[in-house]
């Protein structure tokens, strides 16, 4: 099954949920999804299209569009196609369903996205900060309007 057939199968299964699907090359597909059905799509991808390997999951902040994109990059152990799924969330109150029941290793990715972007994952088994100390929660350092970034306290002799 090549990239075109995969995206066709996906769009026909989830009409109206998948939009802006495009085949970038033989091994890269890009699609946008409605955030409420991310988990169902991942389930389908894993079971029917053998996309069993979650490469990564992360957020991208777009302050001027007032959006946060949650991007899922899903690869496979059987074929070389990599699918990029994007769920667009409102920036004020980003909430999306967790995909941990489908992809086990999404656990840490979601914890990290939570503490760095403030994206809340519903039904996540253990939504705690992963890499930052507890008291930095709420600052969302990877958002574009984070105030603390260039930290100028370091002594520079020049």
């Amino acid at each position, binding site marked *: 099954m090549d990239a075109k057939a995969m995206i066709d199968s996906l769009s026909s299964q989830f009409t109206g949920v998948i939009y802006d699907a495009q085949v970038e090359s033989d091994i890269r597909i890009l699609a946008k999804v409605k955030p409420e059905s991310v988990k169902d799509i991942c389930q389908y991808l894993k079971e029917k299209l053998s996309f069993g390997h979650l490469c990564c999951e992360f957020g991208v*902040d777009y302050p001027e569009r007032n959006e946060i994109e949650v991007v899922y990059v899903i690869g496979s152990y059987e074929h070389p196609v990599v699918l990029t799924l994007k769920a667009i969330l409102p920036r004020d109150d980003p909430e999306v369903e967790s995909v941990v029941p489908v992809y*086990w290793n999404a656990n840490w990715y979601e914890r990290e996205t939570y503490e760095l972007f403030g994206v809340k994952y519903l039904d996540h088994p253990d939504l705690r900060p992963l890499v930052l100390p507890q008291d930095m929660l709420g600052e969302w350092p990877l958002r574009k309007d984070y105030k603390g970034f260039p930290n100028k306290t370091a002594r520079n002799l020049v």
Partner: protein
Amino acid sequence: MYDEVGPSEMIVHLGPQHPMLPGPFRLNAKLRGETVVDSEVEMGWIHKGIEKILENKTYLQGITIVDRICYLAALTNEEAYVGCVEKLAGIEVPERAQYIRVIMEELSRIQSHLLGMGEYASFVGFVSMFMYTIKEREDLMSVIDSVTGARITHSFLRFGGVKDDLPEGFKEDVKYVFGNLRKAIDNYEELFSTDSIYKARTVGIGTLTAEVAKDIGVSGPPLRATGVAFDIRKDEPYLVYKDLDFKVCTQTAGDVFARVQVRLDEMRESMYIVEQCLDQIPSGPIFPEGTAYGRRSPVMRIPAGEVFHRVEDPRGEMGFYMVSDGSDKPYRVKIRGPVYPTLQALPPLLKGVPVADIVAIAGSMDTCTSEVDR
């Protein structure tokens, strides 16, 4: 895990500073007697915020930062980063530069495996092995040093090429080092396969099956030790890997012993790749000619777009997702490190093993904490 600590149970914290951990992370293990009942990994002791820093550096400056994601695989990190920019900007890499990159990346893979294996061997109580591997590694480091000018953080790759050509006499140096290294690897294999104490500590310990490994999402040697031949160099060839003859080393047992065996085989395979490259390497420019992005241009504007590029790190699949908005700095860079899922897999692997096996299992995964924390 902390809620129900039974009367005969206790919680032991390993780390963040612990001599038997490969880098600062903390493992909280709940023990019943000598057996690990439950465990949990705490990360973030060396979280540096590289993704945020990269957003505020120009593309050229970013090369120096990505070196420091994982200090044992600096060249493969650079390859993933530089590959992203090349894909976005449509830069063609000349063939000689591609060969040089392959040579350097394979050399760096060997040194990473040597250090990882030595460290792991010292964890299972085989400290002289660490001395042996470091001895070979230092010679190899000198060869890498003579090309890139630094031992660990190279800043060697550039967009569309490499910084310098191979020095004169490089082939002879590599031949000399490989001559020693081949003997050394045979020696390590003999030591590993004949020592009964070592085998008792490793065979059948920390077994991953192929299904579990795929479900967890590990890649690299821990996955190949379970029999899955997943290798980005074969599945999604970058550089000149499609012209080279090499095989993906696999084992079927999936335990600690098999993972080390995979690394030993991979080092042999890498040496074979380097020798092929040295024989086939064409002469020619190491930088593309007639592109808009010159070697000397400190500020380059990359067309807007998004790209995911992945390469095979010594530890598995290393991927960069880069979003560009047309300015001279990347809009967002996501680093997908191979150790991230591997370290996550420790708690299920450690369930039910004795305390002494924790370090054997954690060490055989060859975890690089710096890359997980970024």
